[in-house]
């Protein structure tokens, strides 16, 4: 649960299009604004820099002079030793509270290179970075991980114990819902990690549909202890994402009712999550 003094968690699910990155952004902002935590988001989810886009800073991070992928390389210790401000140079302000370490184009190559690192040294690289460089600076470090079982994702899961899994109605069959825990158990059997499902978040929920109603019932049956409030489907999220903001980045009168409900749900989910793991 903790690395040094920081709470460490990751958004992770082996499924795309379920609101993983959106949930990471909103939970991070809620933790910062509502709980006054010093929050860092780390985008390890690929090379698309979706989190930077979410905060309207994609233009600032296209040509990074201190990429996070360096951490996974065998020269990191030398880099760290000789560039005292290298971590500071990785970090960007989102403008909504949390800081962000964006993804970079080198992550896919770094993932590939990790395959050549001996297994016993392969998975604890990011954990060391989190512990040595981030834990003293932040109260809450939230990783957005790739939606697959690659070496970067396993590094992230090694570094945290708490996993936040967003699920969208229609994207999962009942059996897959039941298998979420098993997926984490399977990973824990295969790798030296101990991830714990700490928050299951139903996203993009349109309560007017029978599908959503059934989905919420099923998810509550499957995960009664960790299911969070449903995040309603709202056009505000994608519109604001294009504008580089979260729901927390605008005033009430700029949101539809669904947008205000979604923001409140993220707020509640974050409070539940933090109280659960502290």
């Amino acid at each position: 649960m903790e690395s040094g003094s920081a709470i460490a968690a990751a958004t992770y699910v082996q499924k795309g299009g379920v609101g993983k990155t959106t949930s990471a952004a909103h939970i991070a902002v809620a933790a910062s604004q509502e709980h006054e935590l010093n929050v860092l988001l780390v985008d390890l989810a690929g090379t698309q820099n979706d989190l930077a886009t979410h905060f309207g800073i994609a233009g600032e991070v296209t040509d990074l002079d201190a990429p996070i992928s360096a951490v996974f390389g065998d020269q990191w210790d030398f880099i760290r030793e000789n560039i005292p401000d290298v971590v500071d140079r990785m970090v960007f302000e989102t403008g909504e509270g949390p800081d962000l370490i964006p993804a970079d184009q080198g992550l896919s190559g770094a993932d590939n290179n990790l395959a050549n690192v001996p297994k016993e040294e392969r998975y604890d690289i990011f954990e060391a970075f989190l512990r040595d460089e981030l834990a003293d600076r932040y109260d809450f470090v939230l990783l957005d991980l790739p939606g697959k079982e690659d070496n970067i994702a396993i590094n992230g899961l090694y570094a945290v114990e708490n996993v936040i899994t967003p699920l969208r109605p229609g994207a999962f069959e009942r059996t897959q819902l039941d298998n979420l825990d098993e997926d984490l158990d399977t990973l824990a059997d295969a790798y030296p990690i101990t991830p714990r499902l700490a928050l299951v978040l139903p996203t993009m929920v349109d309560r007017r549909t029978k599908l959503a109603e059934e989905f919420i019932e099923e998810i509550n049956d499957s995960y009664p202890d960790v299911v969070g409030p449903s995040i309603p489907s709202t056009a505000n999220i994608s519109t604001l994402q294009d504008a580089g903001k979260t729901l927390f980045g605008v005033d009430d009168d700029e949101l539809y009712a669904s947008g205000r409900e979604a923001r409140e749900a993220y707020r509640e989910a974050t409070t539940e999550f933090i109280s659960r793991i502290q």
Partner: protein
Amino acid sequence: MSDDDQQKAEELLQQSGQQRRHETEPSAPERERDLKEAIKEALADIESGDRHSNVTFRDDRYAALFAALGETGHLTGLSEQALDRLDQDDADGDLGARATAIKLLVKIGLEEVDAELIETFERAAREHVQESSDFSL
């Protein structure tokens, strides 16, 4: 910490961000050509007429099934269910057409089996459009 070391460290730092999957030392299964680039090349080939734009498979039973679905008016409903499942508003085609229904069902299948693949596919398609329009400017 000498100036030389600092300069060397800066070079290594910059190189980290420039490493690409296809340029890093791969493990055996990962020597395949980058999928996204392959999709973009295939899209360009299709646009220039160098590659067919149809996807086919031969199967008597499925051929019979889809013929029957079309003849009994079930294809539109099937396409609508598929759209719901994909959370899409439209299908870029006639919902009652066999090709539209199969295309949607293939997408559902790919999402189920490998959601990353769909993301890569959509990213490749977006980049292809972007690069094509950049090129034409």
